[in-house]
């Protein structure tokens, strides 16, 4: 677990990332704020289209410029705002101090280059290492991600590796420059459960060894429970709840989080009932006013559709913040809505 005394390595403040669809700009991510400490894993969890990947791409400066842009807010990395940084500067940070792994390693690995070459490339570029030195370091990395007989496999091509091993190669590439922050976007979603368990334990081990911060993006609350220190739940482009992992699972407070947890068929118990969340996520171009979950929420009151709720701390748990008029009324309204 973490001690949150010193300054966070990453602080995202009021991030807005918009995309152009149907002639207008629509925010895919709105008013997203969170911080990540060194040696901490923050999981961002949510369903397709909730903005979790867009948040990661915004941090990496990889929002496609043709139809997307960071339209507001700040992304402070080690005290420096990444928003508005030019591509040249960003390229020095990306792959060096911040790196990212993706869901499908085969699409991020170059099929015609050997994996040894691809790992050494980052060291060559960022650390100005010579070929021999970079290769030696790359080999060591392959050992660290536990590729068996790494020396023999060094000159192999990506297609000669299985899915789980490719993902480990991706991890080796991402860690080559000992980044301070690793963004992992659904890194185990395409893997079988036994392979997923292997990759998760490897990531946890390396994170501890390197003391790096990690943002782990997933739709799987089971994976969240096993890897995260803190959790942010996103819905329709906003964080609706953020809390330390034990607190979130013990006391899910936003109705969406609560329903989501109750709609997972569990492998560890004979499930009685399963809740379903009726309806579906609103489209990006047709966001309702007020709370974006209101249309699907069983607790809906008139205020929910009238005004946008704020992400506010719970009275008895300041590190547990919730965006809900009824479950987490702002303090000046607490007496009025306290009965809800």
């Amino acid at each position: 677990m973490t001690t949150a005394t010193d300054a966070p390595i990453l602080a995202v403040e009021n991030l807005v990332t918009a995309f152009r669809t149907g002639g207008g700009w629509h925010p895919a991510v709105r008013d997203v704020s969170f911080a990540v400490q060194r040696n901490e894993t923050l999981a961002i969890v949510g369903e397709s289209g909730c903005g979790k990947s867009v948040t990661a791409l915004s941090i990496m400066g990889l929002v496609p410029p043709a139809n997307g842009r960071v339209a507001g807010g700040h992304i402070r990395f080690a005290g420096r705002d990444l928003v508005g940084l030019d591509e040249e500067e960003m390229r020095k940070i990306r792959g060096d101090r911040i790196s990212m792994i993706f869901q499908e390693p085969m699409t991020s690995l170059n099929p015609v280059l050997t994996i040894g070459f691809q790992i050494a490339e980052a060291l060559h570029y960022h650390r100005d290492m010579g070929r021999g030195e970079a290769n030696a370091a790359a080999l060591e990395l392959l050992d660290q991600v536990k590729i068996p007989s790494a020396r023999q496999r060094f000159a192999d091509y990506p297609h000669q590796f299985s899915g789980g091993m490719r993902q480990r190669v991706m991890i080796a590439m991402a860690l080559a420059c000992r980044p301070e922050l690793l963004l992992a976007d659904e890194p185990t979603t395409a893997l079988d459960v036994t392979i997923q368990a292997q990759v998760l334990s490897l990531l946890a081990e390396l994170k501890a060894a390197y003391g790096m911060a990690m943002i782990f993006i997933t739709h799987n609350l089971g994976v969240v429970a096993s890897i995260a220190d803190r959790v942010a739940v996103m819905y329709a482009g906003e964080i609706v709840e953020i809390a330390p992992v034990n607190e979130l699972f013990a006391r899910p407070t936003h109705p969406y989080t609560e329903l989501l947890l109750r709609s997972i068929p569990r492998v560890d118990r004979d499930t009685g009932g399963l809740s379903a969340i009726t309806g579906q996520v609103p489209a990006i171009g047709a966001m309702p006013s007020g709370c974006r979950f209101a249309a699907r929420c069983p607790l809906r009151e008139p205020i929910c559709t009238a005004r946008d709720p704020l992400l506010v701390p719970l009275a008895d748990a300041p590190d547990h913040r919730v965006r809900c008029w009824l479950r987490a009324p702002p303090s000046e309204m607490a007496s009025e809505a306290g009965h809800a």
Partner: protein
Amino acid sequence: MPEPVLTITGLRKFFTVTRGFPRARTVTVRALDGISFQVRDGEAFGLVGESGCGKSTAGRAVLRLVEPDSGEIVFKGENVITASKARLRELRRKLQIIFQDPYASLNPRRRIGKALIEPMRVHGMADRAECEERARALLAEVGLPDNAMMRYPHEFSGGQRQRIGIARSLTLEPELLVADEPVSALDVSIQSQILLLLQRLQERRKLAFIFISHDLGVVRYFCQSMAVMYLGRIVETGPIPDIFREPLHPYTRMLRDASPVPDPQVKVAMLRIEGEVPSAVNPPSGCHFHTRCPHVMPICREVYPEWRQMDDERGVACHLHAN
């Protein structure tokens, strides 16, 4: 105990694949290497395992969508393998399938109404007006609005398309549904909607299911019994509560313990990192699982363990449980 509606015995299917460049090689994939199981009347039978274990091939072979090499499939006393063309047509009415991605199985240029009515017309179930009425009733049953009849597949979300896939599988009033990863592509909140729908249909229509999934949580929720497959063979079968409480095969235990649980107090088993996971192209000697098994013994490397039926319902193929 209800009677079995479907009995599979020694089902085998090998594929030959030619691949590689510049020197292409022909290899044999032992997708189904002699599997046997029974599905009881009104029961949901889970078929679980990781990618490449042969579970989807098994589902398709039951409907003869892939032609098995050998083995027997008996549905309500009738042999599906030897059935004549005409009989097979009749049998297919009773055996239907739901796919993971219904969009791939819907014609993008055909309205939903037509997609639902066509199978009924082909099988001569009723006249046009009555078929249309039945199609509307089916849409209502799966929770879609009446106007879906006139719309095209692209106008629906993933969850709605799966509802359409389910409605279409019901048009011929089947008795057994093969559901091949029906909720795997869906978000959690939509997944639970579809599971609840399938459960309602199972109760109302007394349907039997072969429910194929890699997600043990979903299988535990939906099914009454299950078989665990590994590289083309069944390694364990039994009732759901028993298997989850006390898995007999080390692979079943590994699958269960590696499945993430939404509770930070329950830590997922941290598994030893492996190299290449073996595949059905070249399964290991002896017990296929011996390369990954924490309890491996010398005999496991030599001899494939014989099937042992522990009681009426439970069975396992593992030297730890040999006679």
